[in-house]
């Protein structure tokens, strides 16, 4: 596993240059070049037609909605939208590709020369980096292969392989950064922050729902190292990096690996590497020397894409408030520090906090619950925050019960657990689970008497002035009331009962 010292040593000796290529499935209703549905989860090979199966004689027709999404994404990334560009064929043989070529864009991408500003946390506070965007282009996804039998899960050694072409032809955009320099030790965090920001941007634009668990966002991570003052080193390209956490891990482990090779006098090979989620490490794929020649040429079955200025302006007008501006606005409205805002962003809870505040919850309380209990519930249950079924009204109700002393934080957590289980509304769960804070003295005194009777020797010690023994009785009472009592109150009543003072 990653050892901080290995990483620190790597960064002490080398400067990293990173680059990211991100593929994202667009959430258009139909595929890139046919009218088949893009709905995820259908039975294999049910969302196919002659076009996306690449049957002989079939022809592609560009999905205008996909072009629109790409232009809007390009605009949001501060890119220039070119007035004329073409699709190209990328030729290689693979059974997940029905035509044995992929319709993509090569030297004429639709959007070029943009940037995205990202913020990472440092010990000296949040720090901004500008990631320059080389290009944004359109292409079609391939089918999905499942390899049965064999030890590797790869096509070689499998007993047989199944292909699902439902995914073939789903529109993808590929966003390629220029080399990112000057990030130093923060390189892994900058990479992660960039992909996070991209994801948020795409969700805000509504061009993709970025379901990472469904593989709808996939990253290739380029890393090279050079000694300070030297030219850039040879880069590797790590593929198959499919989660935000993995982006950070992939950059970090590749920096360590390359530093190790270089420090021991070795040479970095220009190669493709495969990232493994389980180990957080990558293994060598094919080297540049064996690389395929994709024989790109302009796709003759499609007309050039030539968006006119009026259309681009029209699309520009549809851009929503972009995430960075929105964060600045919310920080001000909520009256919180940049670091506090960053903690919300890091928890991925910005939308939830904003919704809660809009629903009448105090900003501080909304932040507390969504970065605290609710975030914990999500990670315990392996859910996205968006899938935790707690409404702003429910948070407001819990908050008011806590403020009035009827609930404490521990009980509030149980209320949220109950909501997440589908047990009903706040008051119903409080009643059904009997979660109200016990403040009725007679009930507590009854429990204290029972505890004293059960532990007469402890009672005797307390009476004899050993006040520190009271903890055992308080603990027994708390246990008997299942945590619903206020511990300080119990102690006070206990000491009064026995006629001793602190």
């Amino acid at each position: 596993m990653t050892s901080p010292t290995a990483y620190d040593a790597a960064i002490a000796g080398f400067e990293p240059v990173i680059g990211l290529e991100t593929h994202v499935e667009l959430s258009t209703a139909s595929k890139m070049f046919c009218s088949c549905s893009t709905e995820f989860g259908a039975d294999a090979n049910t969302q196919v037609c002659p076009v996306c199966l690449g049957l002989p004689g079939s022809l592609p027709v560009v999905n205008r909605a996909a072009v629109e999404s790409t232009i809007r994404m390009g605009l949001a990334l501060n890119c220039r939208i070119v007035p004329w560009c073409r699709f190209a064929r990328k030729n290689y043989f693979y059974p997940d590709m029905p035509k044995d070529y992929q319709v993509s864009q090569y030297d004429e991408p639709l959007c070029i020369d943009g940037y995205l500003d990202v913020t990472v946390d440092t010990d000296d506070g949040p720090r901004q980096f500008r990631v320059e965007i080389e290009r944004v282009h359109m292409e079609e996804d391939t089918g999905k292969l499942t390899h049965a039998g064999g030890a590797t899960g790869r096509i070689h050694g499998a007993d047989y392989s199944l292909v699902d072409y439902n995914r073939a032809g789903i529109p993808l955009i590929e966003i390629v950064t220029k080399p990112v320099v000057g990030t130093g030790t923060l390189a892994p965090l900058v990479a992660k922050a960039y992909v996070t920001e991209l994801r948020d941007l795409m969700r805000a634009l509504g061009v993709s729902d970025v379901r990472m668990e469904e593989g709808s966002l996939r990253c290739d991570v380029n890393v090279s190292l050079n000694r300070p003052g030297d030219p850039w080193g040879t880069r590797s390209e790590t593929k198959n990096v499919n989660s935000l956490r993995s982006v950070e891990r992939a950059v970090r482990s590749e920096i360590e690996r390359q530093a190790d090779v270089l420090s021991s006098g070795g040479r970095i090979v220009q190669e493709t590497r495969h990232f493994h989620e389980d180990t957080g490490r990558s293994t060598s794929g094919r080297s540049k020397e064996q690389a395929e020649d994709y024989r790109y040429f302009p796709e003759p079955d499609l007309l050039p894409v030539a968006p006119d200025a009026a259309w681009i302006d029209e699309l520009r007008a549809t851009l929503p408030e972009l995430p960075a501006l929105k964060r600045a606005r919310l920080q001000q409205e909520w009256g919180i520090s940049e670091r506090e805002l960053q903690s919300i962003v890091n928890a991925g809870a910005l939308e939830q906090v904003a919704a809660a505040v809009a629903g009448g919850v105090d900003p501080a309380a909304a932040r507390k619950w969504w970065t605290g209990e609710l975030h914990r519930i999500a990670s315990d249950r392996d859910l996205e925050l968006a899938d935790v079924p707690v409404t702003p009204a429910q948070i407001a109700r819990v908050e008011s019960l806590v403020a009035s002393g009827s609930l404490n934080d521990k009980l509030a957590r149980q209320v949220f657990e109950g909501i997440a289980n589908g047990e009903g509304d706040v008051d119903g769960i409080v009643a059904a689970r009997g979660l109200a804070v016990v403040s009725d003295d007679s009930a507590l005194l009854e429990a204290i008497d029972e505890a004293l009777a059960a532990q007469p020797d402890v009672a005797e010690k307390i009476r004899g002035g050993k006040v520190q023994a009271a903890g055992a009785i308080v603990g027994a009472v708390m246990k008997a009331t299942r945590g619903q009592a206020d511990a300080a109150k119990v102690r006070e009543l206990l000491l009064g009962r026995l006629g001793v003072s602190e």
Partner: protein
Amino acid sequence: MPSPSEAGLIRQGASVLAHAIAAGEVSAEEVTRAHLDRIAEVDDRVHAFLEVVGESALASAVEVDRARASGEQLGPLAGVPIAVKDVMAMRGVPTTCGSRILEGWRPPYDATVVERLRAAGVVILGKTNMDEFAMGSSTEHSAYGPTRNPWDLERIPGGSGGGSAAALASFEAPLAIGTDTGGSIRQPAAVTGTVGVKPTYGGVSRYGLVALASSLDQAGPCARSVIDAALLHSVIAGHDPRDSTSIDAPVPDVVAAARRADVRGLRIGLVRELTGDGYQAGVSQRFAEAVAILEGLGAQVVEVSCPHFDYALGAYYLILPAEASSNLARFDGMRYGLRVGDDGERSVEDVMSLTREAGFGAEVKRRIMIGTYALSSGYYDAYYGQAQKVRTLITRDFAAAFEQVDVLVSPTTPTTAFRIGEKVDDPLAMYLNDIATIPVNLAGNAAMSLPIGLAPEDGLPVGLQIMAPPMADDRLYLVGAALEAALLDRWGHLLIEEVPSL
């Protein structure tokens, strides 16, 4: 009025048959039966058909008769039989493109051309033989054996659409569909004494036409007279949203032009680069006579130069193989057609290689290799890139010529039909057959070949090519019909009437 004899029926033109069917003089079923009988009688010698769909043809004919009986309005070709080149996808009917690799494939969909034929009540008799994937000028490259020329069974019927042309010349069908990438409609028409038209690129939908070279391929009508070709042209042409390269504009009124048949005041250009030494004496002689007839009809004839036509063949044999190498990649044995070597042990790559090794013929392999090379990194600019520049220059040559004249004319082919086996081992000699037809495919404009007599030295048909600007296909018919009428006057019959009986 006595019903025409069966022997009489097969010798009638499409417009005459359609008229007789609409008038109730003969049923569509009788017409279809007459042609099916003719196929049964002669096709073992001609081998024009790869597949005859007798039952479905009769069912279509019966449906036309029923529609007529119930007083429905019939289209201008309703009930007329047609032969379709085996490169067009037809639902449920084997579609091989003349290749072993597609053996057994039954498309689950109809090409747009097939759809339009069905909608017009045209009766599809079957699929015709062709050079494998339309690569060839003799039909000798069909994996299913050569088609023979009805004028002399020892000679080639042209290619790649030799099956369609031979079906017309042997009276197996009055109409046929061809496709023309470098002359595959016009050259067979010329050497079989029939009429063939390559419409403007984008004039007829390519959806369902199994692609050879996407930027050059164009389907078109084949017939025994200019008016029949015009009627078929108007049935199959017109915008198709499923083909992005299809032109969204009204189809030129080719039928009206064929009926007008008038060249008075028309300016006709002789292309200097498409005459001279390479042309057989009898071809040049008949061509000169035809030009004189046109002049006699009131056309102004001038000589024009298209200097870049000299480079057309070279450019064509880079662009075509490049596109073909990509278009034919999908034939990998994974999804349909032939699969070789799948013994449960071999890798997917090995099965792909073995399938392509066994499934493609020598000419297809030759062009895939040329195309793969031409697109390779480091060679692209020198080959594919240069060829595209030549293409632009040829388009400019045409544009300049059409500023001086309304149409251009040339011999369609340098020679009459050669003997089977004569050029099959000499690819370059074979490629030269298309020297006069290729420029039009590169530039995307329209052209027709029609018969102008028999060469005195061998008694075989000679064709004249008419070339018109893009979307001026009507001019082909205006000139073609005028010349045909003048020849009819001179001979008292169409040239095809002189074909020896089989």
